């Protein structure tokens, strides 16, 4: 039984995850000037441990995830809240909390919690009720609290990605379009309030994004340097370990948010297209698993997970190519960072699980 399950795992997506992680490890090796330390070795160790976890996660009963969806969400929310109380301060924001000796970033983990609980919620309500405005309140609450706790850290990028993730899930489950338009209107009206709410350094980032060349040594500096690195990589790149811009430490946070730049410089346009293609294939497989799934819970879950991955990739690459302000969103599987790696492999586990359990017709409270 177990053996059969393991045999019928979706090995393509596992392969893609592992491949991207290895590309990440190679990038980190290069970022450390041709050394496994300090990032690459840890990245590979995490890959190994989290892959095992993902496979274990794929083998448990999908109903178990369904059953504990809200508890998981509450747990994540408490974790996120604890950042306010005992969080570690870094880079002008407190985002980390130490658990069992590991520094983790609850704002990354809660995205999974949001996806699971939204999936459960929309799995449970009757289709008719979807139209009713009162039934939008609980999902909005599920999105709002993590959003609020993240924005006060302050981590603007993650907060926006949480918000978008929620909105896209609401869209995909069929919430009426006019509600989005109303929401957009409310958002635009509250924008000036939001502008006053965010910290001055975040305002500077947005301003610098709008005109990066104005302050080449300040915030716009990262963008310009990133573009120089990518652009000088040209079609085929400068070759592995031959990137100069990245070596020259032009790139701040080259091992995290800007790792794509380094790879793009060393492997050129071919390399960067290869990476975003791999991500697109993973997202497409997510869609495929979603459609294949016969139960609503699995469908929404798969969509949510694919969307989460999508947001990471689009945010990160838009950031490093100057399409978006630098908001500190890492590139999953490639950037150095334990929490994003963990959440990526939890996502993999859940996707594999849905894939294995596609035949389940219905999951419900009563079952």
């Amino acid at each position: 039984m177990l053996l059969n399950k393991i045999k019928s795992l979706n090995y393509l997506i596992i392969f893609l995850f592992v491949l991207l992680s290895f590309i990440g490890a190679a990038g980190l090796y290069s970022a450390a000037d041709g050394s496994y330390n300090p990032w690459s070795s840890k990245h590979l160790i995490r890959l190994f441990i989290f892959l095992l976890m993902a496979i274990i996660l794929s083998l448990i009963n999908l109903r178990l995830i369904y059953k504990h969806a809200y508890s998981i969400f509450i747990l994540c929310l408490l974790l996120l809240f604890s950042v306010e109380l005992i969080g570690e301060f870094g880079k002008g924001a407190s985002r980390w909390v130490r658990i069992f000796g590991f520094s983790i970033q609850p704002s990354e983990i809660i995205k999974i919690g949001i996806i699971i609980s939204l999936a459960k919620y929309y799995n449970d309500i009757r289709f008719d009720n979807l139209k009713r405005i009162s039934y939008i309140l609980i999902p909005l609450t599920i999105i709002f609290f993590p959003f609020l706790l993240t924005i006060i850290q302050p981590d603007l990028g993650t907060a926006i990605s949480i918000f978008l993730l929620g909105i896209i899930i609401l869209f995909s489950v069929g919430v009426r379009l006019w509600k989005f338009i109303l929401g957009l209107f409310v958002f635009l009206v509250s924008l000036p309030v939001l502008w006053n709410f965010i910290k001055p350094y975040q305002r500077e980032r947005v301003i610098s994004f709008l005109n990066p060349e104005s302050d080449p040594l300040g915030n716009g500096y990262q963008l310009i340097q990133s573009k120089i690195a990518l652009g000088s990589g040209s079609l085929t790149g400068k070759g592995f370990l031959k990137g100069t811009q990245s070596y020259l430490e032009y790139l701040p946070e080259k091992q995290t948010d800007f790792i794509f730049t380094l790879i793009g410089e060393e492997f050129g346009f071919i390399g960067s297209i290869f990476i975003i293609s791999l991500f697109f294939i993973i997202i497409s497989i997510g869609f495929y698993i979603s459609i294949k799934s016969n139960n609503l819970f699995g469908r929404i879950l798969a969509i949510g997970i694919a969307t989460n991955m999508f947001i990471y990739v689009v945010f990160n690459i838009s950031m490093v190519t100057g399409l978006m302000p630098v908001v500190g969103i890492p590139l999953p599987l490639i950037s150095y960072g334990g929490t994003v790696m963990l959440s990526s492999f939890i996502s993999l586990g859940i996707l594999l699980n849905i894939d294995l359990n596609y035949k389940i017709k219905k999951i419900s409270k009563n079952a």
Partner: protein
Amino acid sequence: MFYSEEKQQLTKLNRRMFSLYLLKFSLFSLLGYRLFDIQISQSEKYKTLSKNNQIDLEIILPVRGEIYDTNNILLTTNKRVYDLSLIPEKTISIKDTLDNLSEYIDISFADRLKIIEYSKKIKKFHKIKIAENIDWNILEQIESNKFKLPGIAIDQDYIRVYPKHEHFSHILGYINKPNQKDMSLPFVSKMPNLKIGKSGIESTFNSILIGAPGQREVEVNSNGRLIREISRKESTKGKNINLTIDSRIQEYAFNKLKTYRAGSIVVMNIENGQVICMVSVPTYNSNKIIKKPNKKYWDTLLSNKLSPLTFRSIQGLYSPGSTFKMIVAIAGLKYGLINNESNIFCTGKIEFGDRTYHCWKTKGHGKMNLIDGIKESCDVFFYDLAKKIGIDRISEVALDFGLGTVYDFELKNQNSGIVPSKKWKKEKKGENWYAGETLITGIGQGYILVNPLQLAVMTSIIASNGKNVKPSLIHKENNNFKVNEKYKNEILIVKKAMFKVVNEYKGTAFKSKLANLEFSGKTGTSQVKKISLLERESEDFRKKEIEWKDRDHALFVGYMPSSKPKYSISVVVEHGGSGASTAAPIAKDIFNYIYKLGL
């Protein structure tokens, strides 16, 4: 019903998913297009930009040369010390690091705030210096607790140390950061961070001691961060300097002098002009001056009434007193106003104009000739002689013997002193010269002022029978001084008298006669400006101090050995009493010490 409802929802979901998929695909295509734009279309532009890694030239500061005495005893060197700095980007939290650091070194809360504020203004990879010259045991603690102090870097540096500061601070001076005025110096403009000599030998020989900077070509990014070193040319250490000072004699003389509050001793080699000892008391500590914070130390130096910063040997101006009598005697002989037979009768005073001029010996010396006049330092004899010579001829001779002159010497801030003349008084005071003033000048009082180095040079010229001796502090190859034949015969007579001062009964320095070594000299006791009755009353509560201040300066000049003079000396003890009782014994001891050293 449930089933169909769910199916309905699935259909809805699929429709929405399809549009979502389209959205995602188009966004990914946009990313692909963006990458194409940067990496292919604009690739040339970015390639050019990427080559703009600047190559900077960085100066490697040279290590300053050392200074030794004539026997290669180290007088100043450079000690390796350790400084602490903070690199903001390597900290987790600057505040935490500084808080932890304050367990080991003293940084005030205000300083911590300042550092944090400052760190916001600079590039985060730039170092902020926190503390200099950390003690070894503290450094050890910091080193072993490094894990608690992320971002703290330990840097090596050199500080100048003056191991014999007590005896050499005035001669050596000290170094410091160049100020705005120093910026015009050729070696400073290149290395504005290099400490340079600010006084003494350190200042005079800056160009030799500094050495040559090295340089390295480094690649830096556009932010100024150092990437790698491309080439490196090491700096050249400054040249070492050997002074002519003999630190044994310097130390011996200092210990003799330090029992008094203030004064100077200069010992010169007559043959080559090399100064082998130059002591000024009170002194200061160069090590304390260069070690920051030094404000407190500066304040104590500046508020000290004895002015320890003054290098008395070249800056202190004194009435030469009776040591000036040689000059008057030479002038008198030169202008044929007396010969060694001429006599006068000293009754203890002389009337001139409406004033009475007293001899130090109130009951009088009786019959006096020139040699006895010098030997017993008869004032009346010299009042009379000076009156006959006239001030201008006296001052002419004084200038010939190196008084009133600033020498081309290794120490630049000499005070020239005053050799008065009629012209001088007219120019400086706008008054005519009074004949009475000539009398006072005849015994080295009045306007005439000299510094101790000048006295030593004067004595050297006498001792060498008129060699134009020039003082120096470094070994020069060419030191053949011209012999001035002008005063040859006059000098011989004066030298005979100077011999008797020390070696004959009734000579003023007879008590200082040495059994094993014959030396010659002349005592001097110069009157200090009398304090008026009013002043005396107002400062009555410090009676003792007034008494000290009111005491005469004790002087002695001399040379050894008498037969073949090699070393000359000038001793000045401020408010030391009389030259015979205070200054001559010091000279005797130093000469004896030099003799015992076998120099």
